[in-house]
Structures are given as structure tokens and as C-alpha cells.
């Protein structure tokens, strides 16, 4: 277990000291440091040359460059969407650096050759790239700014035929797989930000689980924005062939900076017959300061397709960071008997804005989906759930259950629900329920009566409120996520 996680566990496992909120009342965003490493960047702005520059930098084959240029041409024709329930000053897309990479030697032979500064950065973040010291057995692909800097446990994984590497490596070494699957779930033209990502994405992770393999360890990507004025545009692609299982984790942090930084990622998942993919995210981008200055714009497109029969895709997310979050992990349930799940806790404080939810598109027969969304708003923040459940004409016996609960802490924040339900088949059953409330005075009183002070009681209730989702997280993340929840809400209660 890495040092950071150990640290986290201590105050929480001993019952008497259980007081996550108070212990972090004075703590700042702890991942806000900047690493002084030399980086190599493209000039500011976006143009065809920049797209060509990125492609050339990565030494990409011709088809990849064409794909990017096509996306760029599409992006130029598109307009930035305005339907989300968030407000922010217009983004100047010409003021963003689209490519920034830590300067390094041409080709690395192993992790030993990675810049020690970089290794230190990840150690500070609690992500050890040094496999030998690791006990948890999580394979990590670390992405800093725009470039993957190292992937651990590669060898063990490849023995089973599992491919887990950076996207640029995959383009070089497994072009046939990339050509087949890249953009098959989130097409280039899908939306404004996915088109932008397709044009300029610099790296990301690629994961391929061959037929019949159950991935022996958690796979994980760690994203870090470091350089100033950069945007991070990574692309993740997970392909699970027949009869496979994989659990995938994603974590993200960024330094504290006064200006807003853009993060527009795309994640695609393909699950074939009987495959199961579990994707967990703990999103902790820098949320901006107490006055709402700075922070990351997190505009992400995540989508999975249950292509085969009996396949399953499960999204779990804990959203505590970013000044603006705009993200709808979706599942297209195409294969018969396939199953989609979405578990989410979104916490907003100060001036954060979150517009998040999911889409469950039922196309195959006997498909099931389940949505559990918990929103917690504090300070001056706004938290929206936006979801779509669509049952197509041929999706007989589709079943959906959605639940979205909102908790309001303070009278200056807002909680919103925008569920869309479209049913075109009379054998489908769709249920949706939502509640909004604050922490009841009777609940607090009950705790007070039993000698639990108000702040602890609030923490207890919030933890209980979010538990249904937290339970879905893998062990390594659950601990971190619980603590994040407490930090995000510091000073907003009591």
C-alpha cells in the first residue's frame, strides 16, 4: 500500500478519532504543488499546423494524422454547446497550449530512466511507479500534462496477453486494434469537445483484454496537469473481448493556478460477449479557490458500449474537484441481456459547478440499467444531475431504475435534476425517483443526544448518504474518496 493511502486510513479506522471534517478544516487542496520540470510545448493556439505538429511529434502513421485532421475540420464547423446548467466566461481556444510534454530522452528502456523529478511528483501524489515497492498490485499508467510517462506491471500483464500501454505506444505497435476501435464508441463528430479531443489528443491509455482472460489486477491511469496554460486532452480506450473481466481506475489532480485550465478527455469502452468492465474515477482536479478563481474545466465524454450478449459496463465516479464539471458517462446496451450501471457522488463547494449524469440507451432485449446518483452541494455551488434513459423500439423487457438524491448544505447553493425518460417499447419498465433535502435537525439531534458533536454527526450523515456509491469503489479508492468528500466540504457545515 502506498504511503498516501496509509496516511489516509489512520484517522478513519480508529473509531474514537473519527472526525474527517474537523481534521481537515484547515487543509488546502493538497495536490496544488507545481513540479519544476522542463517541458516541451507547442505554441499557444489551435490550427491545422498544431494538429500536424502533434501528430509529427508522436511519429504517427499517415492514417492517424488524417483522422485528426478530419476531426479538426469537423470541430471548426461545430459550435460550443450551451445547454448545460453552468455558466463560465467564453473559452479562448487560441489561448491554450495543446501539447506539453516533460522533456525526456528519446526512448526509455525502463522506469529507471524516467526523470527523477517526475518520479518524485508521482510519489508525492501517492502514485509509486516503482513496481518493486508496490504491494497493492495495481498497474499504473501515469500521464503528466499530455504524455504518458510510464506504465508499470507491463510484463506480468503481457504474459497473459493483456495489452496495457500508453495510447501513442498502441498506435505504433497495435495499429490494427486502434484502427478498429478508436472512435467506434465516441465518433469524431459526437460533440464539440470530443471533436476537439480527437484532433489534438496527445496521449492516454489503451487497454486490451484478450478472449477468456480475467485481468489479475486493477489497472489504473493517473492524470496530472502540470504546466501552465495547457489543456489536457487524453484519450482512453478499453477493449474487453469475449469472456473477460477488468477493473479500471482513474485519478486526476492539478496544481493550483489562478487561471482556468481545460481538460477535455474521451474515454471509450467496448465490451464484447460476456465481458465485464468496471470503470472507477476519483476526480480531484483543482476546484479553484474559495472565491471561485481558477480551477479546471472538466469537459469529458465517456461512453461504453455493451456490444456482446450478457456484457456489463459499470461506471463509478466520485467527483469532488474541477471548477466546472460536464460529464455524462454513458452505456449503450446493444447486446441482449447486457447490463449498465452508473454510481456517482458529486460534491460541489464554494463556486464549483457540476452538471453530470448518465445516459442509458437500451437497444438489445432484456437489457438492464441502474443509476444511483448522489449530489451534495455546499457554499455557492450548483450541482445538477442530467440523465437520459432511452428504451428503443426493439428493446423488449428493458428494465431501468434510477435514483438521484440531493443534499443541500447551506442556503446559497442549488441542486437540480434533469432526467429525460424516453420509452418506445411497452414491455419496458422504467422507474425514476429523486429527492432533495437538507440534513434533518432530528438526525443531528439524535446524534447529539448520543454524545456525537454536530460536525461529526454531519460527517457521519454525509458518509451514510454517499455509502451506496462508495461501496462500489475498489478498496484502494474507497478510502481516498471518503477523505476527499470530507476535504471538499470543509468549513461548509456546522
Amino acid at each position, binding site marked *: 500500500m502506498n504511503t498516501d493511502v496509509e496516511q489516509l486510513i489512520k484517522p478513519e479506522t480508529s473509531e474514537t478519532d473519527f472526525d474527517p471534517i474537523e481534521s481537515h478544516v484547515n487543509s488546502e487542496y493538497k495536490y496544488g504543488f507545481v513540479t519544476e520540470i522542463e517541458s516541451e510545448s507547442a505554441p499557444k493556439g489551435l490550427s491545422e499546423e498544431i494538429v500536424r505538429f502533434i501528430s509529427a511529434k508522436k511519429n504517427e502513421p499517415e492514417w492517424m494524422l488524417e483522422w485528426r485532421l478530419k476531426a479538426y475540420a469537423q470541430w471548426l464547423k461545430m459550435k460550443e454547446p450551451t*445547454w448545460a446548467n453552468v455558466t463560465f466566461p467564453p473559452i479562448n481556444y487560441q489561448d491554450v497550449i495543446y501539447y506539453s510534454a516533460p522533456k525526456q530522452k528519446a526512448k526509455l528502456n525502463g522506469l529507471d530512466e524516467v526523470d527523477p523529478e517526475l518520479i518524485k511528483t508521482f510519489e508525492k501524489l501517492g502514485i509509486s511507479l516503482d513496481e518493486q515497492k508496490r504491494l497493492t498490485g495495481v498497474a499504473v499508467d501515469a500521464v503528466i500534462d499530455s504524455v504518458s510517462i510510464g506504465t508499470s506491471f507491463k510484463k506480468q500483464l503481457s504474459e497473459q496477453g493483456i495489452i496495457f500501454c500508453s495510447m501513442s505506444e498502441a498506435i505504433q505497435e497495435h495499429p490494427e486494434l486502434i484502427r478498429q476501435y478508436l472512435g467506434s464508441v465516441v465518433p469524431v463528430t459526437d460533440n464539440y469537445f470530443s471533436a476537439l479531443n480527437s484532433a489534438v489528443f496527445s496521449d492516454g491509455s489503451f487497454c486490451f483484454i484478450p478472449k477468456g482472460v480475467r485481468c489479475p489486477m486493477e489497472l489504473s491511469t493517473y492524470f496530472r496537469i502540470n504546466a501552465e496554460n495547457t489543456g489536457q486532452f487524453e484519450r482512453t480506450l478499453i477493449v474487453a473481448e469475449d469472456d473477460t473481466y477488468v477493473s479500471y481506475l482513474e485519478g486526476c489532480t492539478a496544481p493550483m493556478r489562478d487561471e482556468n485550465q481545460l481538460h477535455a478527455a474521451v474515454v471509450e469502452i467496448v465490451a464484447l460477449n460476456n465481458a465485464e468492465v468496471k470503470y472507477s474515477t476519483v476526480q480531484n482536479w483543482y476546484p479553484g479557490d474559495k472565491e471561485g478563481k481558477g480551477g479546471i474545466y472538466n469537459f469529458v465524454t465517456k461512453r461504453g458500449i455493451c456490444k456482446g450478449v450478457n456484457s456489463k459496463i459499470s461506471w463509478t465516479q466520485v467527483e469532488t474537484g474541477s471548477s466546472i464539471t460536464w460529464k455524462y458517462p454513458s452505456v449503450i446496451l446493444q447486446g441482449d441481456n447486457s447490463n449498465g450501471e452508473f454510481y456517482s457522488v458529486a460534491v460541489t463547494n464554494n463556486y464549483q459547478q457540476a452538471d453530470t449524469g448518465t445516459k442509458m440507451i437500451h437497444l438489445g432485449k432484456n437489457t438492464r440499467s441502474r443509476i444511483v446518483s448522489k449530489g451534495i452541494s455546499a457554499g455557492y455551488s450548483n450541482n445538477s444531475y442530467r440523465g437520459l434513459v432511452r*428504451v428503443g423500439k426493439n428493446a423488449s423487457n428493458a428494465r431501468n431504475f434510477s435514483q438521484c438524491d*440531493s443534499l*443541500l*448544505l*447551506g*442556503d*446559497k*447553493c*442549488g*441542486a*437540480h*435534476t*434533469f*432526467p*429525460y*425518460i*424516453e*420509452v*418506445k*417499447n*411497452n*414491455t*419496458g*419498465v*422504467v*422507474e*425514476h*425517483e*429523486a*429527492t*432533495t*433535502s*437538507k440534513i434533518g435537525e432530528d438526525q443531528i439531534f439524535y446524534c447529539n443526544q448520543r454524545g456525537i458533536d454536530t460536525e461529526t454527526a454531519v460527517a457521519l450523515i454525509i458518509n451514510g448518504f454517499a455509502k451506496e456509491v462508495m461501496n462500489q469503489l475498489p478498496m484502494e479508492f474507497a478510502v481516498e474518496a471518503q477523505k476527499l468528500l470530507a476535504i471538499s466540504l470543509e468549513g461548509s457545515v456546522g
Partner: protein
Amino acid sequence: MDTISYFKERFEKLQTNNVDAHIKDMRDEAFTEFEQTGIPTVKHEEWKYTRINDFFNKDYHFTTDLKEQSFTVSDLSTLQLPGHEDANLIVFVNGHFHEELSHTRSDELEILSLQSAAGHDKYASIVKEHLGHSADYHKDGINALNTAFIQEGVFVHVFKSRTASHPIYLYNITDARNGNIFAQPRSLVHVAQNAQVQMVETFVTIGADESFTNQVIELVVEKDAILDLYKIQNDEANSKVVSTTHVHQIGKSVANVVTVCLNGGLIRNNLNMVMSAEYCEANLFGLYLGDNQTHIDNHTVVDNRQPNCLSNELYKGVLNGNSTGVFNGKIFVRQIAQKTNAYQSNRNILLSENASVNAKPQLEIFADDVKCSHGCTVGSLDEDALFYMRSRGIEEKTATSLLLHGFALDVLEKIKHENVRTFVEGLVTKKLDL
């Protein structure tokens, strides 16, 4: 010719003599707005599931003068709702308030044309203050279009501390026997302090040509007043209706609205409950039974602008044939509106393969000390319940209609006016005996 210039041509022909200056200003302003927004398309979020712009490709007959109408007393007698002998009547023909066919029976209220109310020393200020309040809630062009063409609307005033002895029956009649008709009825109802009134609204189309009704009714409810409004939509397949009902509670009051949609080509209802005072109560109930090609869209808004208000909402739908149901329920709780209790429930049953439903129950909450919830279900009939009945010798058809009746009853029993309830129950029974 595009839609906007089509309407512009007609707008310019509108009569301006004898039109109150305030109303004329409103018309001009509304038309400018309409010119900017046009007719909403499916790209407009509020019109995502309801397509009306196609209907504007047709040429409609705009009647500017009641004398052109061939509608007579005998025509009316065939359309009357039960209990009409004992009710105040308001008759709109092709969007015009027909004073001769209308009739005031109660001493507790007054019914006059909107133009004369605007010039009336007692009512002018009320008209000025409340006419057009709904425009704030509909920036889609359709509301503005109605306002731009206000001609002979109706104004109802229920006197202070009086309970109307007879209900008000409001008929929106479209006479499409000689050509396509575009009708835009407009009403303003003022329920004064401590007054009480029951209103029944219905939509009727006669004739086989196209009929499009774009209705706006605004109701102002003062302190301690009670308003009951029943909207019954049982029209012909050639009728298209966009109906905006805007209830503005300006004092601690109770407003109950029951909407029953049974037949028609296209029905779009906008129901707004705006609670601008503390301790208001609003109850919204709806039942929609679609079959054939019917498209029924119910949009509701509950706007809690002050603390301590209560709202209850229940909309139920049964969709058969190729029909489509749409439900969009919005609850706003403003930051100041602490202690709000707002409940909303939408339940749908799909009976046939080709029926579909689109629901969007929406909450927007800015206050923390509130209890708000919404629920939405879509499904088919409960198989266990059907099996239970069939195992007791009840045939499938009867069992189905029994279950559907039970489903509809929750809404029907909210109609307090007995004549109307019996009448509506009869219509529903006929419809559900599949």
C-alpha cells in the same frame, strides 16, 4: 412565404380602432418578440418532443370580425356540457369572445370583454398589472403570438368575499366547417380576496377542416381565495391545441387544476403555478389517455417564489395505438422559498407496441430547507394483478379495463364538481373499455 411574414401580413391588417392603448402596446411588443423567436421547433428545449412548426405551413383563415361567423345558438346546444343550464357560460368562437352566446348567471361575478375591462375604471388597473404575466415563463414565440393578436378576449372578476353560486363553463370552439381556422382565445380571470370559484374549460372543433387553437388563460388568485379549474380536452382528430394556463397566486390561496386529455390530434398544455406569496397551496392533477395518432404533451411549472408553500402534482397517462405522451414537470424553488414542500409524480402505462412516452421531471432548487421529491414510472400493466383477476374468472379484457379504471380514478376523484366528474368518468369509461 415564411411563417413570420405570413403572420406579419395578418398582424398589419389587425384592427386598431377601439383598442385600448395599453393592449395595443402589448400587442406591438409581443409581435416584435415573435418576429425574433418565430415558431418553436424541436430544437427548442421546451418543444423537444412536440413538433408544431409543420402545422404552420398551411394557410389559415383569420377571422377578424365576429359577423363573419356562421356559428349559431343551435350549434352551441349540441356541444353543451352537462349542467350548463346551471352555469355561467363563456363562449369563444374561433378565438373571439362571443358575448351573445355567453351568459352570466351568478351575482358574485362579472364577465366582460377584455377590451371593455381595460377601459373600465374598476378593472383597468387589474388588466394592466396581470395581463401578459405568463410571457415571463414562455419565451418561445407561441405565447407572444397570442398576445400579438389579442382582439376580443374575456375578463372575469369574482367579487371579494363571495363564493360563485354557479360554476363558469368556458367553451373554446373552433368552427372549421368552411376552411382552416387559426384561433387564439385569450382570457384573464381575477379571483378577488376571499372569493371562490369553479371553472370548467373545454375545447370543441366542428367541421372537417384544419383547426389550430393557441389559447392563453391567465388566472390571478388573491389572498384567501380558492380556485378550482377543470380542463377537459376531448376534441376531434383534426384539432391541434396549444393551451397555456397561467395561475398566479398573489396571496395566501389555494389553486386546484385538473387536466383531462382524452382525444384530439395534438394537445400541448402549459400549466404554470406561480406562488408569489407565503403559505400558498397548489394541486395539479392530470390524466391523459392517448390512442390512434394522438400526441399529448403536458408541460407544468411550479414556481415557488416565497417560503412555506405546498404543491402536489400527479400526472397519469395511458397510451395505446400509435399515440405519444410527453410529460415535463418543472419545480423551481427560489432561494428565499425556504420550507417549501413540493411533490411530483408521473406514472405512465404503455398498452401497445407503437405507443411511446417521453418524460422529464425536473427539479431546480436553490433553497436548502425544503422537501422536494419527484418520481416517474413507465411500464405496462401489472401481470400479477391481471393473473389474480383471471384466476378468479374475470376475462382479460375486463381485468385490463378494471385495472386501468383504478389507475385513472386517482385523478378523476379530484374533480369536485359532480356533474362534470360524472361526465368525465363516462368519457373515460368509454375510452378504457378496450
